[in-house]
């Protein structure tokens, strides 16, 4: 079912958490809410679930306004960030509670519990109480309780945050598979960008109570709408170099190096830029490092080299700026060595110095 947030504002007392959120989640879509801690992701989910009332605005599920509906009537299942397991019930009773409420027969409950437990690898824990489980096991039980039925909408609030790397990758795949099989609209909260990139149909990036960008993972990565999104997505993070637009001289001035521009770019800058200041954004993998002088390259000095196995991160000082580059692991580079940097021109991002919105 389609889910729509319309002009949703939420305040706790005087503190604004979300301001005028407009967000449409298509029927059957897997939407990932991504953002830093405290940006209001859980609050957004809890309002959709009916556990929190919006201060103003309206939420629709399948074109029906639900703001006045009880959680129960919305038919939503949710994995809580805090797990919210029933402490007095065994794992089996926990995950089958939604079925018990719906008067599903005992045999069927058993069958469903076994199915879910197998996916989540908690089959051997069914008789235990939550307090006898580890954090990651509890989290999987919470996931199980929500996956055992087929609601209108699945809500998952960082459901894999407590699992080890291997299990997380595995569960990621299982959730994605289940979603494809069932085709139920899902909203998934995380602050792990790998999870977001791999699972999402679309990603909504939130920060400071606002939706920063809503787009497919590739688009978010390749065309960030502002400096925040550019810096938030991608690891290692995008390099930003502060500079000035010198229109009359057909160049961008970055103190230690210049960047020539043609009149096409000039037109765009004249139109889009609010002042003269701007940021150049370039992803580390779009920076080329050579040990010999190259035409048009910027000279710098290697500050640190961090080999990672499949690649190598090189931090280069160019005047007052530091630029990070991801390069082949077998390049022979040492600390304090002089190197020449080249940016892949078509992969450059320019952001306004004041509004931080994307210019090119």
């Amino acid at each position: 079912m389609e889910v729509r947030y319309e002009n949703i504002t939420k305040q706790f007392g005087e503190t604004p958490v979300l301001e005028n959120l407009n967000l449409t989640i298509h029927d059957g879509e897997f939407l990932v809410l991504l953002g830093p801690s405290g940006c209001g992701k859980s609050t957004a989910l809890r309002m959709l679930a009916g556990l929190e009332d919006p201060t103003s605005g309206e939420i629709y599920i399948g074109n029906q306004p639900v703001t006045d509906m009880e959680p129960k009537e919305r038919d939503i299942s949710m994995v809580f960030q805090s797990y919210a397991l029933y402490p007095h019930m065994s794992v089996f009773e926990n995950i089958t509670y939604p079925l018990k409420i719906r008067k599903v027969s005992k045999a069927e409950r058993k069958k469903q519990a076994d199915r879910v437990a197998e996916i989540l690898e908690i089959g051997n824990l069914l008789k235990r109480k939550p307090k006898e489980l580890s954090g990651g096991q509890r989290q999987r039980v919470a996931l199980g309780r929500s996956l055992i039925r087929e609601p209108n909408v699945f809500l998952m609030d960082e459901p894999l945050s407590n699992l080890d790397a291997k299990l997380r990758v595995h569960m990621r795949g299982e959730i994605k598979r289940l979603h494809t099989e069932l085709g139920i609209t899902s909203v998934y909260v995380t602050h792990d960008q790998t999870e977001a990139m791999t699972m999402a149909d679309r990603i909504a990036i939130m920060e400071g109570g606002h939706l920063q960008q809503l787009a497919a993972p590739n688009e978010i990565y390749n065309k960030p709408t502002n400096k925040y999104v550019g810096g938030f997505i991608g690891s290692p993070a995008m390099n930003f170099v502060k500079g000035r637009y010198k229109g009359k001289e057909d160049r961008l001035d970055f103190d230690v190096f210049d960047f020539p521009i043609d009149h096409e770019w000039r037109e765009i800058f004249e139109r889009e830029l609010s002042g003269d200041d701007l940021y150049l954004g370039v992803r580390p993998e779009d920076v080329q490092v050579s040990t010999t002088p190259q035409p048009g390259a910027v000279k710098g000095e290697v500050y640190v080299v961090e080999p990672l196995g499949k690649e190598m991160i090189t931090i280069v000082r160019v005047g007052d700026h530091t630029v990070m580059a991801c390069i082949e692991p077998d390049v022979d580079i040492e600390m304090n060595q002089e190197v020449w940097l080249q940016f892949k021109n078509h992969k450059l991002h320019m952001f306004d110095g004041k509004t931080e919105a994307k210019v090119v």
Partner: protein
Amino acid sequence: MEQRQETVEVEKQKNWTNKHRKKTLFSNKHLLPYWLILPTLLILAVLTIFPLGYSIYVSFQDFNTYGQPDGFTGSNYAEVVTSMTFWNSMGVTLLYTFGVVAFEMILGLFMALMVSKDTKVMGYLRWVLIIPMMLSPLVVGIIFRLMLNADMGIINYMLQSIGLPAVNWLGTSGTAFLSIMMVDIWQWTPMCFLIILAGLQSLPQDPYEAARLDGASRLQILKDITLPLLKPIIIVALVIRTMDALRMFDQVFVLTQGGPGRATEVISFLMYRAALRFSDYGYATAGLFILLLVTIVLSYGMIKLLTRNEKAGES
């Protein structure tokens, strides 16, 4: 496989703590706490342990006509368990205890559930309800004696003013028994209420949110979430009230003196009379020890109930 690994982990942890415990147990630093609680232990010994031991001794003594202990005997206990008055009192005591505790618990639970959400009402209510508990039971007894007085009590006055006949509250067996129960309920329901309310407010909130999303109705939430989570608290309140009700003395002393007949003669009052009227200390202490035994058995049973159900839930 995973299971086995986990047990190995647990074993390791146990070994670790044991090792470290041994080391510290015999160091001097560890003796300090015992020195610190020594004064308290001494006071306890003088005020509690000695009298308790002495009364056990008394309960096995034969008393001569001057009320002096006069040699070891088991006949006190034999006399108690073969006397009709004792079993009558036991019946009265148990019936009374069961009645008031059940009533107080249900009423207290109901009240706590009603106000647990409404913080404003609760703030006032807490203060009002605490007043009965602060009064001395003796004072409460006297107040009720005045109110229940057949000729000039306010209760009969009110009954008559709405056209009902006056009731000789303390004069007939049934109403006398109900009257002492009423006093207890009036005074001690607030305690059950407060204990349960405190319990309710300390319950984790997120299972409730989960249950609402899982589709449970209010009644199902009460049955499946609130009551099971509250069970330990309820049992604590139950044990405290049961122990207290079993040894109730004041209301009977002030209101009925055990009468009419022996209708309200609870064990503590029976034994008080035996000791202080008839100087039969052996009989009285023996009877009270049997009451103590009943109290222990009942409390133990209730606590067992709590832990057994917890285990049963696991399997």
